[in-house]
């Protein structure tokens, strides 16, 4: 049976790759969709209102001076602003008046790598968009075309790992044959998993996110049992509340900013299969799976990046 499961999984992965090569990024777009874009002259704090008001965590930027796409606004930008403010508490005025086109300066001042936003033409194969996206840390890829007449850039949309995995989960029945336990696939991040406790100052958790280029920090108790996860997008709520100047706040207290419609942290064990993982991605808005053992102790993290990487390049 194991042999059969092994072979079926291998064939299913190959079939999903064929599917990803046969579709374009344009195919993933709904027939009718919204694309929210922000002018780079907008204040950072106003852009936060726009994101929260539209229940989104990222948006493409448009530089109306050059009439060009100016990269993506993501939670990393807000993390950079918090870190800048933390090391320059006297610069409140500057942070308050910071425009989106000033975010590059903040990156340079605090010495972080700019998010290398690759982009791709909407009619390129989806497989190619996934490969390009894996190369960039922003976990999303803008689809850029050119206006036929003026040759100016058009931001057609932005694809995320979540949207692509959901597209696969919804359209590829082969995901039902991914029956091997995820513990056997070598795709779980198990070594040196960054973690913290409820009492950890939230600024320390934010610095862990930023310095390790990760989007979530599991929170454990004294025995290593998983209690919660601090996510990069939680930073938006911190800034919105203006409580980023109270950075002595603990992670546990900062998590109280989460809105009540937060769906909770998804956990799994290494005996789970990608077939059920993809089933959950099809049905729910899940952005990662925290791997625990039978006693609920943290053993690893399975991110959407890990899953997509396996589907594209694993086996």
């Amino acid at each position, binding site marked *: 049976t194991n042999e059969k499961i092994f072979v079926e999984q291998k064939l299913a992965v190959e079939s999903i790759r064929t599917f990803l090569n046969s579709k374009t990024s344009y195919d993933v777009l709904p027939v009718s969709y919204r694309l929210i*874009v922000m*002018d780079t002259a907008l204040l950072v704090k106003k852009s936060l209102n726009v994101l*929260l*008001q*539209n*229940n989104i965590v990222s948006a493409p930027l*448009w530089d*109306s*001076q*050059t*009439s060009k796409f100016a990269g993506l606004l993501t939670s990393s930008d807000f993390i950079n602003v918090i870190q800048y403010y933390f090391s320059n508490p006297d610069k409140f005025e500057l942070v308050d008046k910071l425009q989106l086109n000033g975010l590059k300066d903040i990156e340079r001042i605090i010495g972080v790598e700019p998010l290398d936003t690759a982009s791709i033409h909407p009619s390129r194969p989806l497989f190619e968009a996934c490969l390009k996206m894996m190369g960039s840390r922003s976990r999303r890829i803008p689809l850029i*075309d*050119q*206006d*036929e*007449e*003026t*040759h*100016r*850039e*058009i*931001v057609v949309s932005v694809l995320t790992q979540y949207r692509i995995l959901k597209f696969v989960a919804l359209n590829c029945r082969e995901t039902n044959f991914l029956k091997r336990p995820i513990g056997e696939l070598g795709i779980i991040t198990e070594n040196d998993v960054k973690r913290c406790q*409820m009492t950890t100052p939230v600024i320390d958790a934010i610095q862990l996110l930023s310095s390790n280029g990760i989007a979530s920090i599991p929170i454990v108790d004294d025995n290593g049992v*998983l*209690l*919660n*996860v601090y996510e990069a997008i939680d930073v938006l*709520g911190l800034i*919105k*509340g203006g409580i980023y100047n*109270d950075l002595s*706040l*603990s992670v*546990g*207290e*900062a*998590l*109280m*900013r*989460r*809105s*009540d*419609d*937060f*769906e*909770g*942290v*998804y*956990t*799994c*064990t290494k*005996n*789970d*299969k990608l077939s*059920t*993982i993809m*089933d*959950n991605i099809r049905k729910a808005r899940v952005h990662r*799976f*925290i791997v625990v053992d039978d006693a609920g102790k943290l053993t690893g993290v399975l991110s959407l990046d890990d899953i997509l990487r396996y589907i594209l390049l694993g086996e």
Partner: protein
Amino acid sequence: SKEEDSTISILPTSLPQIHRANMLAQGFPAASKISPLVNKKSKTRWHFGIRSHSYPLDVMGEIYIALKNLGAEWAKPSEEDLWTIRVRWKYDVEQNRTNNEKIPDLMKMVIQLFQIETNNYLVDFKFDGWESSYGEATRHSTISDDEMSTFSAYPFLHLTTKLIMELAVNS
């Protein structure tokens, strides 16, 4: 059989209500002061164009003044249609012309005043193609609207925001 052998679940202590109760129970100092973010799903309310309750001629006057302040030009209105303005507007952006190709730089726009009901008017803005300030006939005339499949609205949206701001500031 999927559900049986799956151990995927949602961590109870991560649900906001349970987390909040735990934090208060453990007496974290700031716990009682921090309220959850209200994800106000305030649906953006959209309007067609911009509304005005001023007298029609006043509205037209304000629009012409705003267009003049912004350096736009317009065709002389015909007697029988005083409520439509055909605008041509130089779209001034830093053009890093790669192979010094001629990019059409004059945007055409039609601004029209509609009456919704007594004392309630609506100003509609419509994109009306590009022209080149160096006189070349743009290809727009050749590409019919149906074939036109990749159009960037951002220059049009940007110019309308400038016009709306000018109107808002002036009024």
